[in-house]
């Protein structure tokens, strides 16, 4: 990953500068429309479907995917695409047509808030704390990825790169809230698609098209036909065995991700109507088809062109260095930074939303006796955004020791995805699920995920143990929630109004959220 910085031309720096100014301008432009917490966290509930769809995709595809996702594709082949294909679309439909209407009608800001209403305050708090820990770790990882890239592209030392990224992201995320985040996401998606599209075209041209790629890669002694198969046999030593991809990723992990990921749901909840929220999710599904083509295919092309790269994560930086002419390099840098910033700002905004809504707001009410005012909430939201970013920046260098950041993120997700989906499903579809049942399902499920992650390859066939962890923790949480619910007192039908199946989908008179 050496040598890129020495090849950056003046035009590259101009493109990078123009991009940065554009992002900061959009962020500050939307600041004048922020007057309340609803404006800050849900964009005043005025987002159109196309902005939601584009924002979901660009928040989901971060710098981590551009670097480590492409690196994994270099190493493991096209099966990596499952994370964006089968790992997206059935889940997006489920999120759009089952879960979203519930959140929408309940008028909630966050998933823990929904769990709190359906189950109890303890479930809400524990889920909020787990989500916060995950989001904070994810922002730190993103900042570290940025540092690694900027170190290679501009020659900056890691710490400088982290703090410069922190300052730029902080500027518009703090001032503009969700509207700024979503509108810069729209611009960033365009930049990202153009940049990665140019890289894909150059890489595929250089490798001789699809036939040239297969020929060059299959000529390498350690590569088999499975490199070009989406579904791979279930056998020892396989990175992504098909049952894990279809049953765990396709059914459980992806559904839990799209219905439980605050960064995704918050965009949909900021929609101007329920139709826009659902249509936004579907638009995201359409764009997701393009991600493996734009991000992972260049990684595979790098395998054909540069078979001996080490580490594999050097695939994209090497392609940029060796193939891209002056001007396009600057564009690609902007694309990388677009991917990075869109993800960091999204997680940041969601992180603060959860902290303020699910942890601070109930404490404030208990201590002062009255609800948090909109003005104070807005000020706290901005202060917290800065605080979270600074904490994440301090923690970022800790990830220098990690070998594969893509697997780290997936492992962190596996700590709560299965249990979350289990209690969500039961909470919505089973009237008998009780507060104690949900709490037990969540706590025991999360503890189990930790134990299973420790066991890893000692029990599971694949190195990607997180595939199995999510699957088994889902079923165990489901069983625990049912068992405990059956021996505890259920909520009354009045308490469940608007929270369970039947009282929402069949309610045609309700037209909008409570807020």
């Amino acid at each position, binding site marked *: 990953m050496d040598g890129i910085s020495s090849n950056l031309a003046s035009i590259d720096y101009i493109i990078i500068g123009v991009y940065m100014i554009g992002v900061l301008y959009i962020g500050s432009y939307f600041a004048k429309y922020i007057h309340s917490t609803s404006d800050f966290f849900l964009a005043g509930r005025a987002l159109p479907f196309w902005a939601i769809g584009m924002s979901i995709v660009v928040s989901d595809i971060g710098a981590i995917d551009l670097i480590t996702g492409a690196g994994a594709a270099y190493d493991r082949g*096209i099966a990596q695409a499952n994370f964006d*294909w*089968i790992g997206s*679309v*059935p889940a*997006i*439909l*489920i999120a*759009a*047509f089952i879960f979203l*209407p519930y959140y929408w009608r309940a008028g909630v800001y966050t998933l823990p808030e929904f769990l709190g209403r359906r189950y109890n305050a303890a479930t809400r708090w524990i889920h909020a704390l787990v989500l916060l820990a995950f989001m904070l770790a994810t922002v730190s990882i993103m900042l570290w990825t940025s540092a690694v890239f900027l170190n290679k592209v501009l020659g900056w030392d890691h710490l400088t790169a982290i703090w410069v990224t922190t300052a730029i992201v902080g500027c518009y995320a703090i001032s503009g809230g969700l509207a700024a985040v979503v509108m810069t996401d729209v611009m960033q998606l365009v930049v990202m698609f153009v940049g990665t599209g140019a890289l894909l075209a150059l890489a595929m041209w250089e490798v001789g098209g699809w036939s040239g790629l297969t020929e060059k890669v299959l000529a390498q002694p350690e590569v088999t036909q499975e490199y*070009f*198969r*989406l*579904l791979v*046999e*279930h*056998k020892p030593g396989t990175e992504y*065995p*098909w*049952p894990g*991809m*279809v*049953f765990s990723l*396709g*059914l459980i992990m992806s559904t839990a991700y799209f219905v439980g990921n605050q960064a995704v749901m918050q965009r949909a909840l900021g929609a101007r*109507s*329920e*139709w*826009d*929220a*659902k*249509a936004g999710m*579907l638009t995201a*599904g*359409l764009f997701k*088809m393009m991600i493996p083509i734009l991000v992972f295919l260049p990684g595979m092309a790098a395998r054909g062109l540069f078979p001996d790269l080490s580490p594999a994560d050097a695939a994209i930086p090497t392609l940029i260095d060796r193939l891209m002419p002056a001007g396009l390099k600057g564009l690609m840098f902007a694309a990388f930074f677009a991917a990075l910033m869109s993800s960091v700002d999204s997680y940041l905004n969601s992180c603060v939303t959860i902290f303020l809504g699910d942890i601070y707001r109930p404490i404030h009410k208990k201590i002062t006796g009255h609800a948090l005012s909109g003005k104070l909430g807005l000020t706290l939201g901005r202060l917290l955004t800065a605080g979270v970013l600074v904490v994440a920046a301090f923690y970022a260098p800790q990830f220098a*020791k*990690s070998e594969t950041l893509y*697997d*780290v993120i997936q*492992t962190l997700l596996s700590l709560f995805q299965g249990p979350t989906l289990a209690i969500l499903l039961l909470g919505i579809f089973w009237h008998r699920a009780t507060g104690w049942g949900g709490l037990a399902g969540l706590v025991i499920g999360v503890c189990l995920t*930790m*134990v299973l*992650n*420790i*066991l*890893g*390859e*000692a*029990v*599971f*066939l694949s190195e990607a*143990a997180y595939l*199995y962890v999510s699957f088994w923790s889902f079923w165990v949480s489901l069983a625990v929630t049912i068992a405990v619910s059956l021996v505890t007192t259920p909520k009354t039908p009045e308490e469940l109004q608007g929270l369970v199946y039947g009282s929402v*989908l069949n309610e*045609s008179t309700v*037209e*909008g959220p409570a807020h």
Partner: protein
Amino acid sequence: MLFTRMAVGGWWENFCEFICSVLGPPLKSFHEPIDQWLGSLPMSVAIACAIGLFVVAGIWVWTLRREFIFRGAPDHQWWRDLRIWSMVVLLPYIAVYLLLGR
């Protein structure tokens, strides 16, 4: 094995070793027959399962009530029908798994 590589001190490593030695063998003997059975299935089953996910999702969407699909839409023009949108989203994925799954 992210967790076993965490550098948080000797007690954590000891705890991980304890978990592996106590829970590893019984869970392995539980999971091994499942692995063997899944390993014996032909790849055509894998492709059918993957495509089946998309097909079932597509069929399910068409069972949703029209009123629910259009709720919040400014009008009921055919192009605002999210069931049609769902088909447009699903078809490329089905094609890709048919082509690259085998």
